């Protein structure tokens, strides 16, 4: 818990939500838990932004919802990925990886780029 908390970079939440639904339907609380665990507590999703993000994804047809019972037998709203959502996740993942790689490459550089001929 003492690790530095990272602020979510704008626009990343959607792809993280989609990724967490990749393993199966989850309710909102489970999504926050999953993201926290998966990032070794580095990323903490704020509830105030999570739910609006979920609803917007639903509105855009990337996730579907269904009421179900949680582990403790309480009624909870479960989110699951639609086909559209799956496609989006694939595309966004690619973009993110490319982006992260590029940023990493620049930041880890030890010398300036070679002069252009």
């Amino acid at each position, binding site marked *: 818990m003492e690790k530095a908390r990272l602020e979510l970079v704008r626009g990343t939440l959607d792809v993280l939500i989609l990724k967490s639904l990749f393993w*199966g339907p*989850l309710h*909102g609380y489970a999504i926050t838990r999953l993201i926290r665990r998966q990032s070794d507590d580095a990323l903490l999703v704020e509830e*105030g932004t999570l*739910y609006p993000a979920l609803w917007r994804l639903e509105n855009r047809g990337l996730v579907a919802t269904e009421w179900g019972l949680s582990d*403790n037998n*309480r*009624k909870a*709203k479960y989110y699951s990925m639609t086909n559209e959502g799956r496609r989006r996740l694939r595309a966004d993942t690619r973009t993110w990886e490319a982006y992260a790689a590029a940023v990493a490459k620049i930041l880890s550089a030890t010398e300036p780029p070679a002069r252009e001929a």
Partner: protein
Amino acid sequence: MIKKIPIWRRYDRILGADPKADIRAELRFHLDSKVEELMAQGWSLDDARKEAERQFGDIRAVQRTGEQIGEHMESRRRFKKYAAECVQDIRHTLRILRSNPAFTTVSILVLALGVGLNSAVFTVVNTMLLRPLPFPDSNRLVWFTGGKSFDAKIRAGGGLSAETYTVDVYREFQRNNRSFQSVLAFQTFYNSLQYKLTGVREPRQLDAVEVSDNFFPTLGVTPVLGRNFTAEEVVKGGRPAAILSYYFWKTEFAADPSIIGRSITINTSPSAVNGSVTIVGVLPATFDFGAVFAPGKKVDLFVPAVMDFWSTWGNTLAVVGRLKQGITVAQAQDEADRLFPSLKSQHKDWYYDYASDLFSLKAHVEGSLQRSLVVLWCAVGLILLIVCVNLSNLQLGRAAARSKEFAMRRALGASRGRIIRQLLTESLVISFAGSVVGLAMAFAILVYLSHQTSIALPLLTTIRLDFTSISWTLVTAIVVGILFGLAPAYRMSRSNIHGAIKENTAGTAGGRGQDRFRSILVISEISLACLLLVGAGLLLRSFLRILDVDLGFNPSHAAAIQTDLPPAANKDELLHRTATLKAEIDRVGALPGVEAVGIADMLPLDRNREWGLQSVGRYHAKGADTGALVYLVTPGYLRAMGMRLRAGRDFSWSDTPDTQPVIVINEAAAKREWPGEDALGKLAYATGKTPDRVIGVIADVRERGLEQNASPQIYIPMTQNSDVEGATLVVRSRIDTDTLGGGVLSALRSLNPAQPATELRPLQTFVDHSVSPRRFFVLLVTIFAGLGISLAALGIYGVISYSVTQKTQEIGVRMALGATRGLVQRAILGQTLRLAIGGLAVGFIASLGAARLIRSLLYATSPWDPFAYLVMAILLLAISLLSGYVPARRASRIEPMRALRGN
């Protein structure tokens, strides 16, 4: 992971979805889970709850966001569902329409007719009445009509002269007024100078208008090529210049862009311009002088009105002003009312004070058209209504046949709204299809109309289908679609499910109520047609009355051609001119088949000017009407025109400048100047200081139009007076004009090689031109009435034939029981007659009221003209019976056995 909710818990949404509660539940679940987690870590319940809420932040804000997103989703979902249903409805509609091509075609064509006529007439109305004139800020343009201080009768009798202005008046007003940014003037006596183009091809007569230097800038018209007139081109002795109309530039000079600066040779008579004239500009295609100021006139070029040249002439200028920003017509009128009399007091030589009525140019242009156009608009509106009723009827008949389908859909759970929507979709699809065809029709009509130069209607040439008209058409289409779809939809959705499903034939699907409803529709159709017929009848009768008017001359077998006149500034020249005219008349008169020849400066129904006529030795009250239209003519003219001498003699070649000045007057003049006396041989002042002797009295000639009574006229011999306004030679001959034309032209050429090649125009064309607006309206209204009655006939046919189909069995039974064919036919014709008489009764009463509205358009016809009403009634009954006869005949051919076995 996800467990299904047990059955019993699914019922908490039995009262429908509650998105707000869902959001609350979702967030509460989140908080509770958090609290549980914290408590598992050893927090107390209270602390855990506080911590969870702290971590969550502003829960209400999240809730609100959720609700907004939820609403958005909900409306999108609804829209999607709606759109899907619409697509479904449209597909179903197309399938149904395809399966019934006869119905579809008839409906679309009938609609196209109604909508097409409507958008065509709307476009005409829009161009002539609604849209501003084609000038920038045209609402600031004001037309001046002189003669405000005359009393109405004199004003009506006076010609163009009474409404126009002298150069001096124009200049003084322009200099002294404070309401106008600028004031323009143009010559209304277009042909006072005859323009002849020589040197390009064979000599050709040009239509030119003399305009003030600020004419185009004031109107806001900028030449597309070149420039406007400059100051040195508008003064006497200045460099002659001309601005071409776009049309003339295109036809005569093949739209040559290097035309500017080129010289053309123009001669005028009497000579004002002679020799080369420089072309300084070409006007835009959108500027059509004729369309605004002189309907039906095509102008080739504009030349500067050299005011010094015209200053000695009488009232010849028309005046239009452009108001300063923020000044109203009323304010300008107020100023004019004060300014003109005060100017008059400074100018003793003015004829009168020139008090004027100021109208917006728009009002002047639309003039008397407004009422005619509104009537036309109403007529097409009626047609459209009939179309609606007709389609409603068709739709209803068809819907009745489909009642099983609807009952089935109802039974399978379709709501009433859904059925209504389906039927409305059908009518809207039909109405859109009809509108597209109708729009094409309107386009064709408008293209045709805009090329009719023989119809003297203002702005006709500028008519085109524009965005406004298309929008209007679309709105009409929607309204019509709803209008004719709603009634059947409403009725159908109410029909009894059980009854319809059990019914195994087309039988009595809609029942009696339906029959009654359709009868009402037919009755209203007939009464609408009735209105149209009465209107058309009254207008037609007025038109026939007008054609019957005694013109005072005989336009048949006579034709006119413009000729040259030698100048005549002094007596010797006048004698020379007389000799030339006599030679021309003799030469043309000698052509085979020519009965009479004469020359006049102006023809009736064309232009006119006004001088005074005062009998000698009588008291003339101050301000009394002394005006009279004046015509300079040669001997033989009266005979060539077919004018009738009531008393005295025609002019002769021996009336010369040295003999007693003589005049011929018309009966109206004789009656005014010598009431109750014989005017023959009396003296009157008409041409100047010395009195003229009246040597003849002719029957009144309609000068201004067929609908205006003749005003006093004076005829003056060209042999004694040189003050002519051009010259037109009139030939009376039984030979066809085209054949005669060549002979006349070569006879004139043999005397004067420079005689321009103008057409020999039958006199009838002047009459036709004069009545063309009325002919146009009567023709249209008559066509509309014809359409109206045809549509009504279609409606009657539809209802009767439907009822025959329905009653096939009943008729079969009757015939089996001994009813004769005649009896069956009579019964059905009786049913038709009842409908017709019902419609007639309603229509008759409506017509009596509506006829009053067109009273001002009628000529010598009462709005309650019994003849028109009687003909209308007979026509309607006949057509109704005819359209009822076809199904009646079919009914009487029913074979009883087959009908009975039918089901």
